[in-house]
């Protein structure tokens, strides 16, 4: 029994022209059994910063609560929102604190930094950051997602085209993974608005 594959998950974040998209699947399972088909894997930290957590659902929930707590404290002290780069460092530090008893999660962080420049990164369960200029993936379907994103990605996509690309990459990858799927949840974030869309794919 693999702990990272206990609940099943798929996450992807992609960079476009002054925008980014972050998408996840919607399945919550317990090994072979599906418990729910409306599980939220992506959470908003603030209007320009989103966090997706793949891996063990209980640790994702605990980690999310700890991170929201730390961000709210930061907001009180600094009187502003955290930059995505700073938040990524915070997540990395919190994960490494538990180096010898880790949270079984792989986070995907996506945000708009200074001058509305999109920022995405992922890290492993002990906080090793992986910055990328194009896309990052996580979860049980990550290998399929790497292939799909690599072939479908183009530089400087506008939000509508980015949404299409991310959606197609997500749906085609989770269809090859029995532990993730049951639809998709896509957030496309530009400096002016956040568009949240639900995808209907193969419901199995």
């Amino acid at each position, binding site marked *: 029994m693999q702990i990272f594959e206990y609940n099943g998950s798929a996450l992807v974040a992609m960079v476009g022209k002054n925008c980014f998209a972050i998408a996840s699947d919607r399945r919550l399972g*317990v090994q072979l*059994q599906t*418990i*729910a088909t409306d599980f939220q894997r992506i959470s908003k930290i603030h209007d320009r910063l989103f966090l997706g957590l793949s891996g063990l*659902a*209980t640790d994702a*929930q*605990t980690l999310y609560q700890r991170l929201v707590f730390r961000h709210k404290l930061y907001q009180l002290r600094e009187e502003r929102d955290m930059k995505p780069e700073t938040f990524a460092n915070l997540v990395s530090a919190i994960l490494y604190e538990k180096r010898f008893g880790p949270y079984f999660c792989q986070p995907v962080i996506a945000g708009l930094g200074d001058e509305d420049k999109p920022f995405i990164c992922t890290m492993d369960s002990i906080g090793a950051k992986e910055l990328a200029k194009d896309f990052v993936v996580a979860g049980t379907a990550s290998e399929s997602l790497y292939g799909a994103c690599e072939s479908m990605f183009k530089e400087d996509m506008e939000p509508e085209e980015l949404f299409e690309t991310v959606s197609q990459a997500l749906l085609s990858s989770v269809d090859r993974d029995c532990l993730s799927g049951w639809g998709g949840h896509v957030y496309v974030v530009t400096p002016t608005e956040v568009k949240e869309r639900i995808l209907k794919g193969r419901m199995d």
Partner: protein
Amino acid sequence: MECVFGLVGNDFAVVAADTSAVHSILVHKSNEDKIMILDSHKLVAASGEPGDRVQFTEYIQKNVALYQFRNGIPLTTAAAANFTRGELATALRKNPYSVNILLAGYDKETGPSLYYIDYIATLHKVDKGAFGYGSYFSLSMMDRHYHSGMTVEEAIDLVDKCITEIRSRLVVAPPNFVIKIVDKDGAREYAWRESVKDAAAASA
């Protein structure tokens, strides 16, 4: 094996649990009530290790009562569910409880709700949920026949369908079940479904 399941209806939530207390091959008793009335408008149906089940649910019950004494108002179902998850999550990496919980409740503002909390503290709000080997049968039965806004009669009929399915298809099917309901009038026992009555003690 222990069977617990529940669903949300029109203005109520119903949970059912088997009533066998089993140790290895021996059935100690077949009228063990595994659905605790947490407070006036909440039910906790728990399955798992017997000691942990009783200890943990009583602990939650007393803390929920303490909150009401201290603050003068009862906890909402969502708050009670999150508190329960927090306790399970804190204990997870120290001294884990092996208890799976379905928490059903009715709040005046938000109506009925059902929360799925598994033993590793995964929390999810659901319309229908189940634990144990019986879940393979009851979840499928509910997937087929459940629709939102069911009346009490329809819901109890569905519960009975699930019990019939478990009795006929599970190899070590528990013979007896208890059904409890929670609605605006409070949490109460609805019915027992017994196919084996405890034999009266033989007269000396």
